[in-house]
């Protein structure tokens, strides 16, 4: 076990963990952040996506030891049900959720896309989400939600 200092959702946090502990386990088990989800542990599905220095990143394979001094943002850091981020609000407006287990990854990937591309085409949205899996078949609504968020933030 070692101590690691991380910036999570704008706050300095110190955690005790083994160096090889993936960030996802630190966020969920040490910091009780439930937004990022465990889907595969293989970086195949995107359910665990967080932002590291603004980039959408798979937290399930990223060792905590590589994150000293880097900025981590989770779904909770984006907004809350009381004060949602525009992407979160767009998912609510489009009712773009079924079981919601993939939602974290979809929202985080979409927010990272819109941070660099204010007016993405449908093809660019599809491309940005191509690595995120949804099992319930909510894809069409998710794309519409990202388009809505883009319009509202433009």
């Amino acid at each position, binding site marked *: 076990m070692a101590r690691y200092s991380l910036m999570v959702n704008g706050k300095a946090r110190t955690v005790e963990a083994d160096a090889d502990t993936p960030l996802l386990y630190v966020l969920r088990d040490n910091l009780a952040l439930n937004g990022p989800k465990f889907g595969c542990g293989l970086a195949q599905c995107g359910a665990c996506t967080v932002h590291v220095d603004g980039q959408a990143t798979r937290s399930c394979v990223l060792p905590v030891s590589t994150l000293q001094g880097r900025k981590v943002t989770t779904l909770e850091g984006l907004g809350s049900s009381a004060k949602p981020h525009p992407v979160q609000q767009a998912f609510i407006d489009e009712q773009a959720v079924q079981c919601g287990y993939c939602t974290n990854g979809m929202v985080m990937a979409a927010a990272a896309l819109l941070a660099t591309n204010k007016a993405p085409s449908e093809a660019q949205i599809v491309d940005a989400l191509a690595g995120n899996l949804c099992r319930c078949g909510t894809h*069409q609504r998710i794309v519409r939600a990202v388009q809505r968020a883009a319009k509202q933030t433009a």
Partner: protein
Amino acid sequence: MQTNRREFLKASGALVVAFSFSGTAAGAALRAPKSVAKDAVDSFLVIGRDGRITVFTGKVDLGTGTRTALAQMAADELDVAFERIDMVMGDTATTPDQWLTGANLTIFQGGSELRRAAASAREALVAKGAERLGVPAAELAVEDGVIRVKTNPSRFVSYQDLIGKDGFQLKVNPKVALKKHTDYRVVGRSIPRVDIPGKVSGEWPYVHDVRLPGMLHARVVRPDELGARVASVDDAAARKISGFVQTVRKDNFVAVVARNEWAAVKAARALKIGWTPGTGLPEQSQVFEQWRKRPTAKVEANQKAGDAPAALAGAARRVKASYQFSTQTHASLGPSCAVADFKDGKLTLWSASQATHSMQDELAAITRLPRESIRLVYLEGAGCYGRNGHEDATADAALIATLIGKPVRVQWSRADETARAPKSPPRAIDFEAGLDAQDNVTAWSGDFYIALNHIAAFKPLDFPLLAATETGLPKPGNWVGFLFQNAPQPYAVPNILVNTHHISETIFRSSHLRSPGRIENSFANESFADELAAAVKMDAAEFRLKYLSDPRAAAVIRAAMKLSGWQSRPSGTQRASGSIAKGRGISYTRYNGTITYVAAVADVEVNRDTGEVRVTRICMGHDCGQMINPDGVANQVEGGVLQTVSRTLMEEVKWDRTKVTSIDWASYPILRFPDVPRVDIELIDRPGEPSWGVGEPSAVVIPAAIGNAVFDAIGARVRTVPFTPERVKEALKAADSART
């Protein structure tokens, strides 16, 4: 309805918070046990002193939106605003057992039971109000839980003022008058789902998020080879992992327990288990031939009219075809998880099971505890679409917690969920039809080879949970669902014989996967109907309309045709010149033959060189009776369509001679965003008609619609799901050699 769970829990009366609700114990608060008898109003409804109404239902929301829809139904029957209602689902200590959540029954059966309880409650409240106000009930009106004298609205009494701490003490009146559909105010509106704001912000409690004081983390270690047993366990390396607590073994059940989850993962990897060789698996390439020859428990005539053998013998022309549907898996996005707490002889489980009530019996058998000391509290998991690994993970947690006497969280791995959760059984179907000289269908004969639904009188041990069989419990039952459903076909043919052959033993531990039976049977029926239409050179939609007399069936078919801009012509008669061939196909089913009507038109592009099928558009006609929440219906229909496009094109569990080799998303791929077709839906509302389920019917029509579109595109028929490029190329080759 409130979505903030702290307020949600605060708002309703009888609440016991077992420990500090600090946010680290999301969803883990326990309510005080209460009446759960299914015939008692108090089992379904509690009116708080603050006027809030808590609905208790044994049905659970599996991510489909029924939490919202059932609240809408209760709000109207009670005459209260939607916002006043809180929902508790699937807690065995506070909700009535309304049978498992599945079979497309939550709204139709669960909702109807809730409606009768709510209407009985309203009737009793109005009677009490009449007494209190001293006027006949007929002179009272109710609005948002306030009973007023119609002629003098300043005289009123509220529901909460009429209900004391003892509740209703009233039986549900099975014949109570329900509200007329013309009086609905909440039902029929697309009220936004109450769970979505929490789900987009990380606030909604999933079973994975439960954290109890002193909770440990466990992983169960299971063999790759099916049927392998434990010969030896060496945990020397696991013991060196920091955070390791102990190894747990009971017979062939082995788990590691650690203080944090990552340590449990590492300890599971470090554990050295010597396994005996497995019991072996059949050669996958021969699976359907073998499946048809397996021993059968019974053969049933599921549909019989006239004399099909005689009519076939006398037919001017006969058409034969056989179909197959591969073994698939639920492949939930999140591997299953459960948390168990065993204290003072009482076992509490936080579980995402679709069958929390019946699991009390199964867990009693596994833990040897009395049923009454076992409580399951439902919390959502990842979508399950039937029986995935939720129940197994729950049993794992129960067993470990009772063995170690400490609270424990069990998280399955990706491989556990993809490879070890139960599978849909394979399906093979053989048909023969007879046509007369005028091209009318005069005979229809079908043989459906389906897995036996072996029910051990429902309890206990309906289903061979891993933790049960690994610890030596017998396997009296194997609940796979109503696989015979929709083997009967809907068309008016004078001579029909449809037999179901019930195969005694499946290859894998089998369970129901979205639209079990209906999806495979309708794929076969609707593909074969299409073959008959092609044989008589008739338009496929026209052919169906010719043999259907139910106007609601015709309406969904016409709706899908209209949305898609259906081109009327015999299918498979176009010849594309380039590599890409386009086609359209249609399919129709009435779910179970008795409820929701649904039709689909698929547009596809087939690459004749590579065999790849691309679905470009699906158009749906859908009639589930009166809709409770139209956008909720649309969400489910879209989901059913897209998940089934995935199943139809790419999903097939793979195995070698000893083990399942589909273990992750690379070896069991599903649909991704770039493959998603446009989906257009016409929802036909039927005010005043019964409200039927919508979770499953849309899935049922998709495989045949796609297969029929592929036939239209390339003139070759793919008769095995999934339609992999190899199978498409084989079909093309077979069609080419038949032509030459």
